C-alpha cells in the first residue's frame, strides 16, 4: 500500500525461499567469551518464531546479528535472500526498511510525541503528503489501541503503552519481518496480555514473519508457532511449544519447568563455599 510513496530503492531482489531468515554455522565471540558456536536457525515465512533461553545466553545479541548491527565471526545469516554480512551500509539500510524492531525499552525518541514517533520513519523514507502520513499514523495507533494517546510524550506513557507505540512505529513502513526483543519483560498482566495478542494478531493480519526473543515460557507458548531454545552458545531445543514441553533434554526441561538448579547452575562458578568463608582474605 505504501510502497508507492517510498523513495527509490537500490536493493537487488533475490528469489524468495521458504525461510525468511537462515542462519548457518554462526560463531560469535565477545572478547574471550564465546557467545555462539556453530548455531543453525531457520525462521519460516508467515510464522511467529520464538528465541528462548536463560538470561545472558545472547538472545539479544542474536537479534543484533540478524539485523546487521553486529557482524558474525564465522557463518552466514541470510535475511530475505541476502547475506547480511556482505551488504554495504546502503544495502543494509534498504533491507532494514523491510524490518521492524521492537526494543526492550521501546527506544522511542524522547523529544517527539507519540504521533511524531510513529510518523518518523514515514517522513524519513517516503515522499507521502502530510495528510496521508496522518492517516497512516492514526491507523497504526488504532491497531495498538493508542489512537487517543497521539499527543502524549514518551515520558507520559506506561511501560506497556510505550511498547505498543514502539510496535506501531515498527509497523509504520509495513515491514515483512517484525522483531521483538523481550516484549513481555516488566509488564503487568493486562499489558502483557495485550502485547501477546498484538504479536499474534499483527503477524496473522499483516501476513508477516515475527521473531520474538523472550524467556517468558507461558507467553511464548501462547503466541509462537515454533521455538528455539539457546543455552551455552548452542541450540539445545527446537520445535512447537508442545514439542518443547515434551523434550527430554535436561536443559530444555529445566527451562520449561523453571527449576532453579540443574544443568544451568543456580550458583555462579566460584571457589568452594566453606573455603571462601574460612579464608583470612576479605574477598
Amino acid at each position, binding site marked *: 500500500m505504501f510502497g508507492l510513496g517510498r523513495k527509490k530503492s537500490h536493493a537487488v531482489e533475490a528469489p524468495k525461499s521458504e525461510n525468511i531468515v537462515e542462519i548457518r554455522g554462526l560463531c560469535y565471540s565477545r572478547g574471550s567469551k564465546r557467545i555462539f558456536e556453530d548455531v543453525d536457525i531457520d525462521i519460516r515465512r508467515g510464522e511467529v518464531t520464538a528465541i528462548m533461553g536463560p538470561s545472558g545466553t545472547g538472545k539479544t545479541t542474536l537479534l543484533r546479528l540478524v*539485523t546487521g*548491527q553486529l557482524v558474525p565471526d564465522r557463518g552466514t545469516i541470510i535475511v530475505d535472500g541476502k547475506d547480511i554480512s556482505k551488504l554495504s*551500509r546502503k544495502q543494509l*539500510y*534498504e533491507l*532494514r*526498511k523491510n*524490518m*521492524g*524492531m521492537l*526494543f*526492550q*525499552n521501546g*527506544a*522511542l*525518541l*524522547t523529544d517527539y510525541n507519540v504521533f511524531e514517533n510513529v510518523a*518518523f*520513519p514515514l517522513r*524519513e*523514507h517516503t515522499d507521502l503528503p502530510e495528510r496521508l502520513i496522518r492517516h497512516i499514523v492514526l491507523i497504526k495507533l488504532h491497531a495498538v489501541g493508542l489512537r487517543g494517546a497521539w499527543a502524549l510524550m514518551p515520558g507520559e506513557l506506561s511501560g506497556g503503552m510505550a511498547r505498543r507505540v*514502539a510496535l506501531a*512505529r515498527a509497523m509504520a*513502513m509495513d515491514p515483512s519481518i517484525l522483531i521483538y526483543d523481550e516484549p513481555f519483560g516488566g509488564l503487568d498482566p493486562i499489558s502483557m496480555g495485550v502485547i501477546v495478542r498484538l504479536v499474534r494478531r499483527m503477524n496473522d493480519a499483516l501476513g508477516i514473519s515475527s521473531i520474538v526473543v523472550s524467556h517468558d515460557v507461558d507467553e511464548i507458548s501462547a503466541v509462537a508457532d515454533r521455538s528455539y531454545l539457546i543455552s551455552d552458545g548452542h541450540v539445545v531445543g527446537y520445535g512447537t511449544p508442545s514439542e518443547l514441553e515434551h523434550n527430554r533434554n535436561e536443559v530444555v526441561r529445566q527451562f520449561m519447568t523453571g527449576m532453579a538448579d540443574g544443568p544451568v547452575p543456580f550458583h555462579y562458578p566460584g571457589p568452594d563455599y566453606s573455603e571462601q568463608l574460612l579464608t583470612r582474605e576479605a574477598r
Partner: protein
Amino acid sequence: MRYWVRDSWFQAREFLQTFGASQLFMLRLIMLTPRALLRPGLIVQQVYATGAMSLVIIMVCGLFVGMVLGIQGVDTLSRFGSEEAVGTFAGLSLIKELGPVVTALLFAGRAGTALASEIGLMRATDQLSGMEMMAVDPIKRIVVPRFIGGVISMPLLASIFTAVGLFGAYTIAVVVMGVDKGEFWSQMQPNVDLVRDVLNGTLKSFVFGVAASMLAVFEGYNAIPTAEGVGRATTRTVVITAIVVLVLDFMITAFTL
C-alpha cells in the same frame, strides 16, 4: 618498572586509537555536511538549541569580562598617562582573544555538555539503535545537524560576547571612571583593523566552533551507554575542549601574526 612500561604502552595505544577514531569521525561529519544543508529545518533547530539557548550566559559573562577590562584598563593605562587608550585596549582584547576564547569555553560548558549528554543518553536508551533499525543513519540525522548548528552558533555568540563586553568596558571606563567618551571610541576606530583583528577573531571562533562541536558530538556518540559513561563523556567534553581551544588559540595566534 615493567608494569609502568606496559601501562604506558596501553595508554599510548588507547590515545592513538581514540585520536584516529575522532579523525575518521570528523571526516565523516565533513563529508555528510553538504547533504545535511539540504534540510535547513534541522540545522535551525540546533542553532536555536546551541546558540540562542546560550545567549544569556554569553551576554552576562561578556558584560562582566568587559567591565573588568574597563577597570583594569583604566588602572593600568593611567600609570602611563594614557587611560584614553582603554577603548583600543578593550576592543583588541575582546575581538582578538577574549571574545573567541571565553565564548568557546562557555560554549563547551553550556552547549557542549548538552550535546554530549543528549547524544550519549540517546545511545544509552537505544534511540540511536532504534534509528539504525528504522534505516535512518543517526550520524546524518542527529549528529551532523548538531555539529553544523554548533559551528554556525560559535562565531555569532563570540560577536555578541564581544559587543556586550565593549558595552561593559565603556560603561565602567566612561560612565563610572570618567574617561572621555570621544577618546574611547576614536582611539579604537583607527587601531582595530578589519582584516588583522576582526577577521582573525572570526576565524578563531569558527575554528573553535568546529573543534568544540566535533568533540561534543564525538564524545556523546561514543559514550559508554550507562549513566556513568554518559557522565564521563560529558566531563571529557569540557576538559578536552578547554585544552584544545587554548592550544588552537596559541597556534592560530602564532601563525597569523
